[in-house]
């Protein structure tokens, strides 16, 4: 079982670091799945945490890593699954975030006294002209193949309606304030590009309406009904406020291309496209009143 990868570009390194930082804010532990040309991270798979939703990230190796080599333990199980602390990994990558220019960053799976994931960054700081090496070894637990069914990469749910989100900062502030109003929040979306966030308490009902959102995808519930175009289909789902709020406050990525998909009464699917094949997903399950 071997793994080796290298990053060269400063922009990619910073994005990678911000993805991990986002995951670190959401949960303590994370699962890293290394496939042949893909890298996945899963957080909160078992929904144990009441305050953070299920989040996973899929990264195409070719995008970030000019050099990526994964050799699994056995040929018929073509993955390496590692469980590690997200906080440690985030701290190990912190060097990539600072103002200092990073020449390269190597990721390796090693066994020193225990299996660990090494992050070796070659950093040139303002002081010195030469690069210096910063090595962080994050201890990992290798998950045996027999346990892999527990750690499957979640499927993207089929949403009836997918809209692109309004400004992330605004959403974060709105949800933060709504969180205090009521434990659940309802997302209503319709094909006209409107998204309504509703929070209800005994005394008051607050609705925040976002208009003119771009419609990404629309699935007609009734495919045979072709002349029902004037009735704009809509979708709604009520979710736990705290989970939504923790997702939005955890986001560290500068990119603002977030889209929200609503599967009526089932779940809310949030998708952040960092770049074409680097995607961060989250699922907020529906709750009943």
């Amino acid at each position, binding site marked *: 079982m071997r793994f080796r990868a290298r990053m060269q570009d400063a922009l990619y390194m910073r994005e990678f670091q911000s993805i991990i930082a986002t995951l670190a804010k959401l949960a303590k532990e994370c699962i890293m799945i290394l496939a042949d040309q893909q890298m996945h991270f899963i957080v909160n798979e078992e929904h144990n945490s009441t305050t953070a939703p299920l989040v996973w990230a899929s990264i195409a190796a070719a995008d970030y890593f000019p050099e990526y080599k994964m050799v699994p333990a056995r040929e018929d199980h073509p993955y390496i699954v590692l469980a590690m602390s997200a906080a440690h990994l985030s701290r190990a990558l912190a060097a990539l975030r600072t103002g200092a220019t990073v020449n390269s960053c190597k990721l390796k799976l090693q066994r020193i*006294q225990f299996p660990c994931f090494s992050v070796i960054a070659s950093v040139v*700081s303002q002081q*010195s002209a*030469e690069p*210096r090496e*910063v*090595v962080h*070894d994050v*201890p990992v637990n290798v998950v045996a193949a027999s346990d892999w069914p527990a750690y499957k990469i979640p499927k993207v749910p089929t949403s009836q309606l997918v809209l692109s989100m309004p400004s992330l900062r605004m959403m974060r502030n709105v949800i933060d304030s709504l969180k205090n109003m009521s434990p659940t929040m309802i997302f209503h979306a319709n094909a006209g590009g409107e998204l309504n966030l509703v929070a209800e308490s005994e005394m008051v009902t607050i609705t925040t309406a976002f208009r003119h959102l771009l419609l990404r995808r629309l699935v007609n519930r009734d495919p045979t009904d072709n002349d029902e175009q004037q009735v704009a289909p809509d979708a709604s789902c009520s979710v736990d406020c705290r989970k939504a709020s923790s997702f939005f406050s955890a986001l560290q990525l500068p990119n603002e291309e977030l889209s929200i998909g609503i599967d009526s009464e089932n779940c809310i699917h949030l998708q952040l496209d960092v770049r074409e094949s680097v995607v961060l997903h989250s699922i907020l399950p529906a709750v009943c009143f």
Partner: protein
Amino acid sequence: MKCTFEGSNARVIAKAIQSLSKVGKELYVEVDQNGLLLRAINATHSAVGSIRFKRSMFETFNLPRTGNADFYCKISMKPCLAAFRSMKQVEHCELSITDNQTKFQVKLRCKLETVRQSVIAILDEQNITAGVLPDHSANVIRGEYKLFMEISNSFNAAEEELTLEAKSDSLAAKNYIEGARVSDRFMRSQLKLKPNEFTSYNVTQDTVITFCLKEFRAFLLFAESLSADMTLEFDEPGSPFFLKIKKHDDIECLLIMSTLSPDDVSFSEDYCQRELTVQDAASPVNVSKKRKGSAPTEQIEHKRRLADDTTLSTTSTDLALFQYNGLRTTPTNISEPSSVQPARLLPEGDTVDVDDDEEALILAAAVAVESSQTMPTANELLSYNSQEAPPMTVLAVQEDGSDEDCVPQSPEHRDNVRAIFSRCFQKTYVPREPSPSSQMYAPNSDTED
């Protein structure tokens, strides 16, 4: 004694006090002909920091008129911090000793005609002097504070200790010791530096030293506020480590820290008492004199201590607090030359077992009972306010200068069940193999192993 200085110097002194507050809980002030000297010693006596301000920093400088032109006092750190808290508006500062030498007064004249005055009670007239001369180290490294800040920032803020592996052509800063067993949840970090990053790099003897990060960071903070270079001097593991900061010939700082001896696995909460050695009668320490003139080879004096100056063996106490703590079945004696020496007070200076209650119990119940009674106490006695000391009789702790008739606490209740089923309550971290640079003094006598 009275001295005054203007605003910007007052801010420097405030920063110095802030840094020293991170080292120790009391501030030792010494005023002599050369200037003002502020010192602090940490709870476990493994680090002494001193900052000297030369006379040129002061506007006026009046020494006490008594024949002995030196003045010492010890004041509690908290009121000092409070007195020097917000220094932005200060234009002028005056320090004086009043009220028949029992009070330390700080008068700050601020903008808009405000005067802030703080009067701090002097606890005692004690002084610390360090028993080592910091000029003969084999390895000297000097660098800008920014470099050391970067080193310090690579490690977690909660990190306890730092290991430097110094070779003639490279320096590696790590948070673990090579070859030592670590727990599985521990993230190792390492920073490799080249000699040309430092202002001057002179390593004649390849060494690996480990010291506490907390005091290092405290002085690093001060160096940052002065924008000064820092010089590190060290020899070999076990011998003291010096950190010097010098600014414009006005300000000189020295931090003396103990380093981990090769025998030990790690520092624990009650750090290595290793630097304290038996003070035999030969050492020329005069206990009875309250004020001590500075002798050329100074020695640490602490009056009114019930502590034995003892050879304290390595501590591996408080297993619950530290991951690395090896369970040591045999105490090791410190044999290296003393650096920091406590003043001797009691005639009995014998080796005291600093092993933890429960650890001793592993060996034999009988031995346990015995050793628990000779509890070190030394450990705890020497640390005034340390809450980290293992729960032992608090008999000897005395707030110096406060009350003669302080009632000793009753001894803590020993839970006998725990004494009998001790193994059940332990975190059994027993390193299977000893660290490569360790020495076996006696084979493992644990019958269960």
